[in-house]
């Protein structure tokens, strides 16, 4: 099968699934439902693209196929920030600052976190990528536990506000943020699209990238910023969902034998959207909300992850 053919199949599938998601069991005249569903579909597209792109970039920078930004604690930072706001302002939290403002501050916070990670890695003494990952994991756990501690302290009503950010849910999606998040994503995407060729070179490793004239450290810093933007978008809209990245990126690598990032970013975005919409469709119409899309994706992802470990192990031995 040619790459072009596979690409067309994925696009066709996406259109099909997207179309059925909007139209399943609804009269065409029922504009209320159709509008509601379209907004949800649009949000899923934004989330899918964000998750896919952040994961592809992250995996290229770390030269590792089974990592996603969630392992670096990006989502934990986001949740901690939300918890802090609710902790400080109580249930008036989102009357004091608007959702959009909140999102804006959250992004700043995430960019700060990226910067911190960067200096931990590229500060005075250069550390290895593994050091960065370890730091990210420890910080992530620390932030998660801090959040949990604060959760115990706040009023249950206030906790329910934070809860929205903690569990993936497309039914209770934060659609108020859709436009701001969408614009943020576009900014990140335009930058990435423009600089995708640097990612191609960076995939060769730091030494080779420098030999080919790429300012490697600067590019890593910038792409970490891009990742924090994208993770902010997906986490703000639906919660911590970047685990989806492992499934999506690896499916892309498996399906297409290319390392051209511009192409990979597009394909993995399509695959991510397809997975999300299909999962949500199953949840809403087949399983009648008896489970959540994150459970379905985690299940599929988990099985696939084990398969990945299995074939890698075989390749090594």
């Amino acid at each position, binding site marked *: 099968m040619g790459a072009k053919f596979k690409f067309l199949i994925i696009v066709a599938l996406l259109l099909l699934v997207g179309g059925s998601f909007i139209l399943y069991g609804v009269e065409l005249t029922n504009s209320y439902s159709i509008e509601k569903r379209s907004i949800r579909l649009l949000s899923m597209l934004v989330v899918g693209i964000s998750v896919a792109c952040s994961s592809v970039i992250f995996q290229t920078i770390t030269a590792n196929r089974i990592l996603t930004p969630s392992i670096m604690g990006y989502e934990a930072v986001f949740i901690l920030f939300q918890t802090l706001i609710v902790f400080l302002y109580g249930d008036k939290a989102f009357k004091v600052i608007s959702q959009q403002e909140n999102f804006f501050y959250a992004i700043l916070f995430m960019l700060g976190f990226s910067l911190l990670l960067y200096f931990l890695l590229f500060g005075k003494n250069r550390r290895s990528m593994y050091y960065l990952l370890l730091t990210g994991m420890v910080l992530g756990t620390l932030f998660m536990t801090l959040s949990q501690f604060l959760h115990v302290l706040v009023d249950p009503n206030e906790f329910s506000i934070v809860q929205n950010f903690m569990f993936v849910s497309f039914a209770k999606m934060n659609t108020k943020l859709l436009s701001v998040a969408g614009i943020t994503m576009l900014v990140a995407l335009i930058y990435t699209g423009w600089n995708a060729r640097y990612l191609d070179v960076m995939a*060769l490793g730091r030494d080779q990238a420098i*030999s080919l004239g790429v300012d490697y450290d600067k590019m890593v810093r910038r792409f970490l910023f891009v990742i924090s933007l994208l993770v902010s978008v997906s986490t703000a809209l639906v919660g911590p969902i970047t685990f989806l990245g492992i499934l999506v990126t690896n499916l892309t690598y498996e399906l297409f034998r290319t390392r051209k990032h511009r192409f990979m970013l597009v394909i993995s975005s399509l695959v991510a959207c397809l997975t999300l919409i299909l999962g949500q469709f199953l949840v809403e119409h087949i399983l009648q909300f008896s489970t959540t899309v994150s459970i379905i994706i985690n299940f599929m992802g988990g099985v696939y992850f084990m398969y990945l470990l299995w074939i890698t192990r075989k390749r090594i031995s």
Partner: protein
Amino acid sequence: MDNTEKNKLEFETIAKYYGKKEVLKDVSGSIANRKITSLIGPNGAGKSTLLSIISRLIKQDGGTVSFLDKELSTYKGTDLAKKLSILKQSNHLDLRLTVRDLVSFGRFPYSKGKLGAFDEQKIDEAIAFSDLMNLQDTYIDELSGGQRQRAFISMIIAQDTDFILLDEPLNNLDMKHAVHVMKTLRRLVDELGKTVVIVIHEINFAAQYSDRIVALKDGNICYDDETAKVIDPVVLKDIFDIEFDIIERNDKKICNYFNL
């Protein structure tokens, strides 16, 4: 050969620490233009560190590297990438690239990813130069170690820099591939006028193919001379602390250091 010409790549009082360990101690010297220079010495002598410093991969803790009379760190990455390239030990990358794709990366400093007709021509030449025509559409991860190393060298050739630095290019290669790689490097110097610096472990390869040898020991340069002068039982014993027997045949020196 014009011996009065100033060496273009010079380094002065280079010091480097890894933690508290001093890897290079005020090392000074220069790289002869249009020659193959081999960096030799025991493990941990600082060869790879020196190579990485003069190729800007790592920063020195003291001293300066000057290239074409300018401090190395003042160059823009892209400009330097057109003049000086470095290839580190072949890494086990899970690269889904064909040989041609990889070689095309060599043109990145010039084309920024958009290959023009001239770039394609350079890529063709580089592939032909390293004798990879039959393999150019093969994926890197399907190649043998030797073929992969040649593909990386071919990328460096496509980069078309005057200075080519290689860190243990013969690592894990069998004799046939090692000889092939060394002959390719020799041709780069003799036919294209490049300057090549290699870190190398097998003394006989250094003896056969290099013009000059720089020997490091405990973070210092202990010898920096023409190959024929370094390939000497007394000198080599001083560097490596083992006995050497030098066999001369057809004007070539072969070092035997086994079972002496």
